[in-house]
């Protein structure tokens, strides 16, 4: 069922990007070529897009080139979109995964702690902090981080993936440079995720099997580890899967703040320069990332909950 939904998402993204190109001011050829519009290039592009053929054929041509990982050519950058993305994607993945892991590492213990001490002073404080963090514009946190940790106290570099001019970066350097942007990204996510964990764990702790486990002689901590985490993770996995689009939006902003050359930065630069081949390529990849993330969440859900495997619930 979710696989069907994933297909719907991909379909929407591809139709949307396809239509967008056709709707661009000045027509697709003019928009895709920008200032590099020479008669020769225009004719070649027209040929490639099949503009003389019916719209349906044009769409299938577009899908066909997507399937061949041919995302077009950036005339602004004089480079194939695929190679531009290939250069940026690893940086974004590092940033995203780092932020993801950091957010989970804090959100899970925090949410569990709050669920074990609901309505306590610390629960209230954490809830308030999460509320403010959630409403905080990402670039504000990013700017404060740079201001205090790079400008006033030069602890972390203010941006980039590594020292200027250095191409062969070690893992340590990459992690060091990605640390601050990833932390900023993680802060916003963990505000939301700790709420998910808290409410899911509260629901789980009220379940009868938790009482059973206590009656077996397990301590509260043992029970949480033995039954709480696994059961509470079921809705949390789904919610986190659903918050991937927001995470991707956050990546765009964070990379722009820190001039971090990932997919978001690529998208931003392309948008400013009206580099439509790149814009469309990044959009397609973002859609793909969401779909893959959702499928991964479903897979995890399947692993955690045996009832789903047997087709119940």
């Amino acid at each position: 069922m979710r696989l069907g939904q994933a297909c719907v998402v991909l379909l929407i993204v591809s139709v949307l990007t396809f239509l967008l190109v056709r709707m661009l001011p000045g027509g697709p050829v003019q928009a895709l070529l920008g200032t590099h519009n020479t008669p020769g290039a225009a004719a070649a592009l027209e040929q490639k897009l099949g503009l003389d053929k019916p719209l349906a054929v044009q769409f299938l041509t577009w899908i066909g080139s997507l399937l061949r990982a041919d995302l077009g050519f950036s005339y602004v950058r004089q480079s194939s979109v695929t190679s531009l993305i290939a250069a940026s994607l690893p940086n974004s993945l590092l940033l995203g995964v780092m932020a993801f892991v950091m957010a989970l590492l804090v959100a899970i213990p925090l949410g569990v702690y709050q669920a074990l001490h609901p309505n306590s002073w610390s629960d209230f404080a954490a809830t308030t902090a999460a509320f403010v963090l959630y409403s905080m514009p990402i670039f504000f946190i990013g700017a404060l981080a740079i201001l205090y940790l790079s400008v006033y106290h030069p602890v972390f570099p203010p941006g980039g993936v590594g020292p200027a001019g250095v191409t062969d970066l070690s893992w340590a350097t990459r992690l060091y440079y990605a640390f601050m942007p990833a932390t900023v990204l993680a802060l916003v996510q963990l505000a939301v995720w700790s709420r998910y964990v808290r409410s899911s764990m509260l629901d789980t702790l009220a379940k009868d099997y938790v009482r059973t486990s206590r009656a077996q002689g397990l301590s509260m901590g043992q029970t949480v580890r033995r039954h709480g985490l696994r059961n509470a993770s079921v809705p949390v996995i789904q919610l986190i899967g659903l918050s991937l689009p927001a995470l991707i939006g956050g990546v765009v902003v964070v990379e722009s703040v820190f001039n971090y050359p990932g997919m978001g930065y690529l998208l931003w630069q392309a948008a400013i320069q009206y580099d439509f081949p790149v814009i469309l390529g990044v959009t397609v990849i973002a859609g793909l990332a969401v779909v893959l993330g959702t499928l991964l969440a479903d897979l995890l859900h399947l692993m955690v909950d045996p009832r789903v495997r047997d087709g119940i619930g």
Partner: protein
Amino acid sequence: MESGSPQDDGLLVDPVRAEVIHVPTEGESGPAALLPESVEPERSPSPMAVALRHPAARVGLVVIAALVVFSYIGPLIWSASPNDTDLLVILQPPSSVHPFGTDDVGRDVLARMMVGGQVSLNIGVAAAALGCAIGVVYGAISGFAGGRLDSVMMRFVDGMLAIPVLVLLIVLAAAFRPNQLLLILVISLTSWLIPARLIRAGTLSMKSQDFIKASQAMGSTSTRTLRRHVLPNSVGIIVVNATFQVADAILLVAYLSFLGLGIPPPTATWGGIMSTGISYINEQAWWLIYFPGLAILLAVVAFNYLGDTVRDAYDVTAR
């Protein structure tokens, strides 16, 4: 607080809640009176009224009122021009002449903050309102149609929800150089999804109620049912969600202006001021970071908080 998340949706679809917020209207007393007492929903004080009497909700309202006064009345009192440049006083920290300092071309930041506030509030409120309107129509059609059409329409909503909003906005902003009106349209294109789900859920739960079945059997049309029952019943949920949508829209406007893809210069925006601040962060132009940052934070917190407290007030009246 997780506005726009599916969690809100699930909570609000709760049949108990859907029933509790029903406010019966006079027009339908005939068919309803024919049915057993238990079917007829209870008359309760308007939840909105209850909520707004709530002191916590007032805090949100007061902050929003202060922002409105600052943005719209402020320029009448503070006479400095937001767009006049003065290269003799660039990047000046706050002083008595320029209480919020000046930017990279010597413009008065206080005046620019006020204009930026207008932009944020105009777009935020209008986009949320338009988004809710679209959502109401879409959700009602989907809910009343039912069957195949309903499931196709809802799959589309699910699909749209999976598309990163900001990426979509960047693409649209690059394609169509935005002005305020266009930004409102574009943002409302992303903010109708949750209201559509809510209205659909409200429509479905109404459709299953006996007195609606009775009134439909007596010839009442879908539009009439929508106007008489679903809308009065869902107005609270929609208003609560709209405040979340305003908060989200204000953030989105800020992000777009920050990325240089929002309202084109020289019009001042909070995101744009922040963007300048980051460009001159090595000059330690903290005032270009703190003032817009805090303003956005304040506005977003105020709308989220208002929505939250009103929703909690519903929960209380529901008990």
